[in-house]
C-alpha cells in the first residue's frame, strides 16, 4: 500500500501516542559505555547484510556474497558489508606469522614481516574494487531481482598501505622484469600476473581498510590494491611477489577472467573495469513507498579515471537528465549520485549511465552484446533497467 502525499502542514493531523506518551527509551537508561568495546549496527538493521546465492557454486568456500548496495549511502562501503569472493575460504592468519617474499628477477630476494611493512612510507587512498564477474549473471537477460545481486560485487574503501614500488626498490628490480606474479597464502594459493608498468604506477600493498586492519575476508593482514583493475587481481593474504619477463598464464587468468566472444575467440588481459553505474534506490529490494517527493540514488565508477557525469533516464533511455553527484570524487573511486524527483504513481523505467574522464560512455546492454556476445561472463557494464510499477514495486527487466 502506497502512502499518498502526506497531509499538508496546517491541515488537520491526528496526535500520535509515540509523541504524547513517554516512551521507554526516553525514560529508562540505555546501554552504558562499557557494553560494546567494538560496536555493531542496531538490531533494527538486521536486514542490512551480505547475501550469497547458494545455487551459484558447489561450495560456500569457493563462492561469492554480495554487498547490499540498496541499503547504503555515501561512497564508503562499511567493512562488514564489503562483498566476499574466496577460492578456498578465508585464510585465518596471525600477523606475527605472516611473511611476504619477493623473488625472481630482483637483485636480492627478500622476506618481510608485517612489522617491516609497517615501517615503510604509507599512503591513504580510496578505491573501488569490482569483481570482473559483477553483473555476469545478467549477460543473457535479467536474472536476479535486486541490485545487491546484479551489482553487489563491488565495494569502495579507504586503504592505508605502502606503494608497491617501495618494496620493489628495496629488492631491486632487474631491467628485464616485465611482469610480476602475485600469490596469496590461502588454500587456493591464488596467483595472478601483473604488468610491471601498472605495478610501478599506482599499485599499493595495503594493511588497513577504512581506518582499521584489513578484515580477514579482505586479506588480513595484507592485500594488493590495483586501482581500477578487476578485483581478482587484488590478491589477498599476499605472501609472495615474483618478478619475471612474461605473464604466468595462471588458472585465474586463463580458465577464468578471460572473455569469450561470440566468434569463439577470447580476450585476455582485460584488466581495466569499464565505466559503469547502477541506481541503488529505487531498485527491486528498495521499491518506492510514497507518492510525491522521492530521492533516486546510485553509484557510478570507472577504472579509467574519475566519473565526470552521470545521466539518469526515467523512461527507459528515451530522455536523460544529468544527476547531481554529491560527496568526494576521487580517481578510481565510486561516486554517489542523486536525482530529487516527484512521483505520482506513473510507471517508470529507470536507467543510469556513467561518463568518465576519458569520455567513455557506459553502453546499453544491447550495444555491449553486439560486440561481446553473451558468453563472456566478465566485464558486463551495460546499462541496467529497473521497472517501477504504479504500486511502487520495482523489477529488474530487459527492454527492447
Amino acid at each position: 500500500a502506497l502512502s499518498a502525499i502526506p497531509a499538508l502542514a496546517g491541515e488537520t493531523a491526528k496526535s500520535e501516542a509515540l509523541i504524547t506518551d513517554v516512551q521507554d527509551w526516553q525514560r529508562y537508561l540505555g546501554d552504558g559505555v562499557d557494553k560494546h568495546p567494538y560496536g555493531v549496527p542496531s538490531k533494527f538493521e538486521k536486514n542490512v547484510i551480505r547475501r550469497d546465492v547458494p545455487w551459484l557454486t558447489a561450495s560456500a568456500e569457493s563462492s561469492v556474497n554480495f554487498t547490499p548496495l540498496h541499503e547504503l549511502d555515501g561512497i564508503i562501503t562499511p567493512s562488514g558489508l564489503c562483498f566476499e569472493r574466496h577460492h578456498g575460504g578465508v585464510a585465518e592468519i596471525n600477523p606475527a606469522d605472516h611473511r611476504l617474499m619477493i623473488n625472481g628477477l630482483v637483485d636480492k630476494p627478500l622476506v618481510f614481516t608485517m612489522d617491516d611493512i609497517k615501517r615503510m612510507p604509507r599512503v591513504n587512498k580510496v578505491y573501488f574494487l569490482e569483481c570482473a564477474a559483477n553483473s555476469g549473471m545478467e549477460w543473457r537477460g535479467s536474472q536476479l531481482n535486486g541490485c545487491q545481486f546484479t551489482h553487489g560485487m563491488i565495494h569502495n574503501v579507504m586503504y592505508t598501505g605502502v606503494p608497491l614500488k617501495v618494496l620493489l626498490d628495496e629488492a631491486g628490480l632487474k631491467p628485464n622484469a616485465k611482469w610480476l606474479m602475485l600469490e596469496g597464502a590461502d588454500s587456493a594459493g591464488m596467483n595472478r600476473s601483473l604488468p610491471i608498468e601498472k605495478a610501478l604506477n599506482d599499485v599499493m600493498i595495503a594493511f588497513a581498510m577504512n581506518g582499521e586492519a584489513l578484515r580477514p575476508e579482505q586479506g588480513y593482514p595484507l592485500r594488493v590494491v590495483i586501482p581500477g583493475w578487476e578485483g581478482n587481481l587484488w590478491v589477498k593474504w599476499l605472501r609472495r611477489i615474483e618478478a619475471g619477463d612474461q605473464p604466468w598464464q595462471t588458472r585465474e587468468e586463463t580458465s577464468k577472467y578471460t572473455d569469450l566472444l561470440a566468434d569463439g575467440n577470447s580476450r585476455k588481459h582485460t584488466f581495466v573495469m569499464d565505466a559503469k553505474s547502477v541506481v541503488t534506490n529505487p531498485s527491486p529490494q528498495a521499491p518506492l513507498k510514497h507518492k510525491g517527493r522521492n530521492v533516486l540514488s546510485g553509484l557510478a565508477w570507472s577504472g579509467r579515471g574519475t566519473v565526470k557525469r552521470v545521466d539518469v533516464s526515467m523512461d527507459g533511455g528515451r530522455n536523460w537528465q544529468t544527476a547531481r553527484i554529491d560527496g568526494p570524487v576521487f580517481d578510481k573511486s565510486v561516486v554517489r549520485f542523486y536525482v530529487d524527483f516527484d512521483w505520482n504513481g506513473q510507471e517508470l523505467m529507470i536507467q543510469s549511465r556513467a561518463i568518465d574522464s576519458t569520455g567513455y560512455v557506459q553502453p546499453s546492454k544491447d550495444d555491449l552484446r553486439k560486440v561481446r556476445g553473451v558468453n563472456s561472463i566478465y566485464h558486463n557494464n551495460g546499462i541496467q533497467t529497473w521497472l517501477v510499477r504504479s504500486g511502487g514495486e520495482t523489477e529488474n527487466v530487459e527492454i527492447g
Partner: protein
Amino acid sequence: AQQMAGRDATRPSAKLGLGRAATPEEITAWDTDVRPDGRGLPVGKGTVKQGDDLFQEKCASCHGEFGQGVGRWPVLAGGAGTLKADRPDKTVGSFWPDLSTVFDYIKRAMPYGNAQSLTNDEVYALTAYILSMNDIVKDETFELNEKNFTSIKMPNAAAFFEDDRETSEKHFWNKSPCMKDCRPAPKVTGRAMAIDVTPDGKSGPKVE
C-alpha cells in the same frame, strides 16, 4: 640505516634497510609456480594410468570419473567445439591455452580442502590423465615429465588475444551522448521475476 656524520639524527636514509634475505630453502618452498615456457617445472614424471588411479582416489568425488563434474563441481574434460555454441562448455581441453596452468594450479590448490598435499610425480600423473580425458594424449602408457612437458600443445591456444577494447569498442567513447528522444518507446522483453532464481524465500535451479 647507518648514521651519517653531520646529518640530522632522525632524517631517514634513502634505503629502508627493511626485510631480510630470503634463503634458498625458503624460495624453493614457495616458488612452485610453472610458466608456459616450462620455467618452474620440477624434475618428475607420471603416466596417464598412474594419474587415472590417483584421480579416481582423490578427485573423482567432485570432478567425476571422467572429469565430467559431479553436481555443480567443475567439469574438467569435454566440450571441444562448443565455444561458439549457445552454452559453451569451457574445460581444460576445450578452453585452456596452456598445459603449465594445469600443473601450476593442481600443485597449489588441489585437491580442494587439502592443498599442497601432492608430490610432483603425482601432479605430473594427474596432468597426464587430464590430457588423456580430453583426448589430447591418446595412449594410457604416456608419461609426462619435465622434458616433454612443453611439447604438448593445447587445442584452444591460438584463440586468445590481447585486450583490444580501446579499438574494438571505440564507439563507446562519445563526446555528446544523446539526451532527448534517443530511442523509440521501450518495451519489457524479459523479467527477472519470471525467471525466479533470486535468493530469499525463492529456490534456485535444481542441482542436476
